């Protein structure tokens, strides 16, 4: 056996694991998506019925819309907040490390715990937020935070942002550290002020960090279901029912495996398409600069 072939054989254990735990399950998901399987027992092939159902019922479009809104809020807010903190901390070496660590802490907690704690903070009765509003004389703003449809979606997304702002900030700080100091010094010598330096030097040179942050937060949130699962169970009135949560509920509450598989296949295709397009666009943007 040639050396090349021997070395290639090293990939085999990994390939076997991926085949058993990813490729076969994916194949099964595609197969089941053409059936009316309900978990146990017999099932029949129903052709494209599940897909037609998804394409013709407004319920599924609404769920994709919720997911899209969730992703948009998270990507925009998380990128902006992470960038704001990183820009400030980049200029403040004395407190940079301690703030980076502090901001990162929520990312070490699990979705379950973050969901629990924020559910309680936002609860209308003994929750912390309403009490805080009372305390500062803004009692008029008190409301049932997670019981109001639009508000619930925004808040659940913002909790996600709260969790991962430190992560985004750390990636931007690493990007700042990669900007050669000579460039910034030259700009200072040329008399460029803070804003001008930020817009003309730092922002363009951070392009790779933008790519990583936007792609990570998009792909991470497109399949999210954990926070809505804990905080709102998809309510009120489906306002926070992301496609991920809809699949989990179709699967484990309704036991409609066929339909859930079809939804999964559609979600996976959307994720792959978005990842492909984003990668293209963001990398092109990097090359332009």
């Amino acid at each position, binding site marked *: 056996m040639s050396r090349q072939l021997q070395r290639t054989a090293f990939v085999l254990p990994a390939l076997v694991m991926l085949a058993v735990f990813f490729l076969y399950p994916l194949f099964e998901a595609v197969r089941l998506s053409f059936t009316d399987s309900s978990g146990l027992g017999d099932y029949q092939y129903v052709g494209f019925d599940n897909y037609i159902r998804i394409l013709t019922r407004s319920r599924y479009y609404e769920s994709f819309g919720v997911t899209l809104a969730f992703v948009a809020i998270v990507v925009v807010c998380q990128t902006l907040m992470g960038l704001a903190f990183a820009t400030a901390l980049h200029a403040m070496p004395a407190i940079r490390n301690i703030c980076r660590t502090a901001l990162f802490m929520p990312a070490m907690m699990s979705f379950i715990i973050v969901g629990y704690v924020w559910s309680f903070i936002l609860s209308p009765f*003994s929750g*912390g937020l309403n009490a805080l509003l009372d305390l500062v004389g803004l009692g008029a703003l008190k409301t049932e935070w997670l019981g109001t449809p639009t508000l619930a979606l925004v808040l659940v997304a913002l909790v996600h942002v709260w969790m991962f702002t430190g*992560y985004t900030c750390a990636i931007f700080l690493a990007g700042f550290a990669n900007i050669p100091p000579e460039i910034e010094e030259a700009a200072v010598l040329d008399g460029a002020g803070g804003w001008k330096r930020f817009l003309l030097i730092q922002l363009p040179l951070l392009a790779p960090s933008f790519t*990583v942050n936007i792609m990570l937060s998009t792909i991470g949130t497109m*399949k999210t279901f954990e926070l809505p699962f804990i905080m709102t169970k998809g309510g009120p009135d489906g306002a926070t029912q992301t496609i991920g949560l809809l699949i989990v509920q179709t699967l484990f509450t309704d036991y409609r495996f066929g339909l859930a598989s079809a939804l999964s296949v559609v979600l996976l295709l959307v994720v792959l398409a978005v990842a492909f397009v984003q990668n293209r666009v963001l990398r092109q943007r990097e090359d332009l600069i």
Partner: protein
Amino acid sequence: MSPSPAALLRPMLRLAKHALVLALVGIMLLPVFYMVLMSFRHGQDIVNHPLALPEHWSLSNYANAYEKMSYLRSILNSLGITLAVTLAVSFVGALAAYPLARSTGVLTQTIVSILSLCLATPSFVTITPIYTIFARIGLLDSYLGIILAFTALNLPLSVFFYTSFMRAIPKELEEAAELDGCSPFSTFRHIILPLLGPATATLSLFVMLMVWNDFVYPLLLLTDSSKYTVMMSVYHFVGNHNLNPEELFPASVLGSLPLLILFLIFQRQIVNGITAGAVK
């Protein structure tokens, strides 16, 4: 000569900016402080005065949560599973990365595409077929089953991670070993493997975060409460209806404490490792 007002103003402005950023970071951490402070209070006290500090620092909430969650047992479960998954995923991952790091052929590209596809697949898509396989071969509700499932889940990341790490290792090292008559496996074993320490340390952080915090896999694959991971214990103890603050807060603190302590000790390595992993 006294300094001009502008020269005096500048350091003060700088100080004010620092104070502002510190305050904003403090506000971001409020929910964490809130969680810790509330964990000591009685439910009735929280209802009466939602924002008050603990009336007394009683540990009775904790004693109750500790016992009902089988806390120690679940910590040991999480630790053991993390250790086993780290060992398995770093060995299988590094082995696969070795040829991938040195070739750009069609086969390599195919394998990289498969890995990307796996990375993008949500875990709830694959969980039901895995459940069915496990039920058929008797791996449901076993440590081996959950370890295999988590290993597979972390494998794509691990392969990518080691591949980029190994590309930085000079080719000459391997070539010298080959000239000395080492087989590919013994080159891997004696030359490459000893260099992977730092990469494996970082990878183990990812594994630990996932094993500690994931709850899709254990929720379905483990039913025996003596095998629960920490997050399973928290979830089964607190539930998903009518949250009781006397249970919710101490369980949340106990559930996050080990990772937060670990994080505060190794914060530099962890943040650097995770961002480096993301940037590559």
